[in-house]
């Protein structure tokens, strides 16, 4: 009986959880500093986990000292470490942003409720990235859902309640589809451990049915076309910090698990046809989400549809993974894509939150003339959009470049075409928003109410997130090297 692995793995789950519990116990008003301290402690644990993975390779921590299949393993390879780190960056940013956003006087009750929910969610997200156990993942996924739905509904208006209701019903259906698949897998293999199941499950009929059920559930949670319909109302009606975590983290956890399970648990089932099907759904998400984003008249729905589009890219790895000349680069590109999208999307939603907070609305037509007053927020929004478009020198560019050169190197031109087209469409919706925001105020406009002044921290946070996207674009080597730790054998 030995734990193995770094203690920081369980801490990445337990520290945000304990912070949430203590915040609830004391009340957020009495301990406004506590979420910040918990966030910093979580970041420290994640940093330690990342350091361990980078230095010593993948880490496996056996909870209770019980080895699988008896016990539950936490497992961090380069991919999981990168997800933890991205979540820590977004989590820290959202925690810093939500303080002034919620404690400004008219969000008192929301503040009391936001903090424990968000901190439990952070714990559950870290658990989702770390758990190497199919049933533990089910509980973590439910925990993510049951904290995400109230965050959607927190403003309590009709639109957000309807969006939250739809989201909850579909997410519960997704969880049960997932669990149904897990039941079949356990029935066939006698284990719940991701890689042990992969070794035992084979490619027979029961395995295929289980994989289909699990994948359908995860695609629904990850809002992949055509199961994306719930996302836009949910993400665009939530308050800014909630929108940021929902789009940057919650749905991406679903996509992450699709990759994790297909590459580690079901590689035997990943035939070219299956790869094309999943990649095709990803491509449809890219194109459909981008086209819809072009047609929106409000800022937050543009960003939410862009989420639908961006979630599709990592799935393009699945058809490319079997092509030896494409696999390695596509793997880096897909993983980097999740990170780049997470940071840029959190920055974009928080910047949009500033615009809304300041103007009281987010209609695109009403954005003319805001640039002088909201210069920093517009800059952050612009920088984030540049990464979503995939222009250098951003992390989004690098991710797209790796995916694209993988696809071209392997002679997979249809996927390359999707990547290029998606980038062009993103340029379309991004520039449309920026053109409005940078335009001069129309001269015939009646006198507008002066924008509300933003707390300094709310101005700084989205900009810092956007700058992080540039940093990861310029200096990608550490992250890419991290990804090599425990890269899937299924590639190529």
């Amino acid at each position, binding site marked *: 009986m030995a734990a193995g692995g770094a203690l920081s793995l369980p801490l990445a789950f337990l520290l945000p959880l*304990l912070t949430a519990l*203590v915040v609830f116990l004391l009340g957020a008003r009495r301990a406004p500093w506590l979420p910040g301290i918990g966030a910093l402690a979580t970041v420290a644990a994640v940093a330690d986990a990342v350091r361990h993975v980078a230095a010593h390779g993948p880490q496996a921590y056996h*909870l209770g000292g019980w080895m*699988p299949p008896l016990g539950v393993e936490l497992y961090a390879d380069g991919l999981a470490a990168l997800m933890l780190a991205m979540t820590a960056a977004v989590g820290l940013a959202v925690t810093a942003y939500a303080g002034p956003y919620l404690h400004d006087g008219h969000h008192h009750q929301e503040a009391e409720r936001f903090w424990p929910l968000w901190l439990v969610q952070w714990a559950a997200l870290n658990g989702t990235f770390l758990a190497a156990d199919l049933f*533990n993942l089910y509980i973590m996924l439910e925990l993510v859902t*049951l904290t995400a739905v*109230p965050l959607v509904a927190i403003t309590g208006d009709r639109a957000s309640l309807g969006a939250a209701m739809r989201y909850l019903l579909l997410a519960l259906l997704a969880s049960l589809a997932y669990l149904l698949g897990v039941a079949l897998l356990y029935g066939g293999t006698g284990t719940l451990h991701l890689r042990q199941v992969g070794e035992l499950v084979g490619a027979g*009929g029961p395995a295929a049915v289980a994989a289909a059920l699990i994948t359908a559930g995860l695609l629904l949670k990850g809002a992949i076309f055509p199961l994306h319909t719930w996302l836009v109302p949910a993400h665009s009606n939530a308050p800014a910090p909630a929108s940021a975590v929902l789009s940057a983290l919650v749905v991406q956890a679903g996509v992450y698990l699709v990759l994790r399970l297909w590459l580690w648990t079901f590689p035997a089932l990943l035939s070219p046809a299956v790869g094309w099907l999943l990649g095709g759904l990803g491509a449809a998400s890219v194109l459909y989400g981008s086209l819809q984003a072009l047609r929106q008249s409000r800022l937050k729905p543009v960003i939410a549809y862009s989420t639908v589009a961006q979630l599709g890219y990592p799935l393009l790895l699945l058809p490319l993974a079997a092509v030896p000349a494409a696999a390695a680069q596509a793997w880096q590109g897909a993983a980097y894509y999740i990170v780049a999208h997470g940071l840029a999307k959190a920055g974009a939603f928080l910047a949009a939150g500033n615009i809304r907070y300041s103007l009281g609305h987010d209609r695109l037509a009403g954005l003319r003339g805001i640039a002088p007053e909201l210069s920093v927020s517009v800059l952050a929004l612009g920088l984030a959009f540049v990464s979503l478009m995939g222009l250098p020198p951003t992390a989004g560019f690098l991710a797209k470049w790796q995916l694209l050169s993988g696809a071209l190197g392997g002679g997979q031109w249809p996927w390359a075409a999707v990547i290029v087209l998606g980038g062009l469409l993103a340029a379309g919706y991004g520039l449309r928003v920026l053109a409005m925001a940078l335009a001069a105020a129309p001269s015939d406009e009646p006198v507008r109410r002066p924008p509300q002044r933003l707390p300094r921290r709310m101005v700084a946070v989205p900009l810092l997130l956007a700058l992080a996207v540039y940093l990861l674009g310029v200096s990608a080597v550490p992250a890419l090297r991290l990804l090599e730790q425990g890269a899937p054998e299924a590639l190529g």
Partner: protein
Amino acid sequence: MIDRAFDLLLIGGMLGLAVQVVASRALFRSVVLFIALGLLMAVVWARLAAPDLALAEAAIGAGLTGALLLAAYRALQPAGEAGDAEPAALPRRWALVAAVLSGALVAAIGWAVLGLEPPAASAGREALARLGESGVKSPITAVLLSFRAVDTLAEVVVLFAAFLGARVVAEPLGRAGPGPRPDPAGGEPVLMPLLLRVTVPMGVLVAGYLLWSGGHQPGGAFQAGAVLAALGVLLRLTGRLQPVAETSPAERLALVGGIVLFSAIGLAGAGMASAVLAYPEGWAYTLILLIETGLTLAIALPLTLLFSGSAGLRWRGR
């Protein structure tokens, strides 16, 4: 032979009830039949050698879920409204699509389970073989609180998160939960006080017994918590417990204390034993009982509050 007939009868009853739950025209009937189905499931669990589940299903699956459903039915069905105001049914072609889809699902799962060979080794077999190392005698308690303790920890957090979420979307106190009670000063059945005087101490006793017995036979924190929650529901319905808008410090402690205790003991395992969520040699039984005591409250109170629809409860007595 008789066994087979009993199984077929149970399955027939279960599927028949499920069809009725979906197909029944009257929503109230669907709700009641669903509760009946829950009770039947409890029999199925007993039949499939799962007495722990039978207890939990009867208390939580049928009992508390039933109470929640009935309260919600009443809230969604204003008094005086004739019949169920249900939205128009979907067009017929949708029903066809649904039938094809669910038929395909049944076929796929049925086909998969028939092709499924039981594995030679399983986590459960190992759990039984190494039961002695867990410190408890009941295999299920060993899985829940030792081998896979993190599942249980996360699951109590799920319940806590549901409570937090329910607070976010809560209705005003007067309408929430089981809704307004008929005039509390007005009479209640004469036997009610007597009944409660017997039921409440009995319930607490049963919960305590279930909690203690979980170490070696069916029972444990889940079942004990469910029985306590059922008592809470009873006291809320009869007005002994009144909903209030604030969670008291004691309630806050009961809600998260068990989870904090579980996490703290789990963390201490990294120093005092081999790993996080491992128990020091010789301490497993004591610590598991301690954790289960905390969890009993962390299960009972949020369930009661979710039924009550309030942030807290105050004793009002009679």
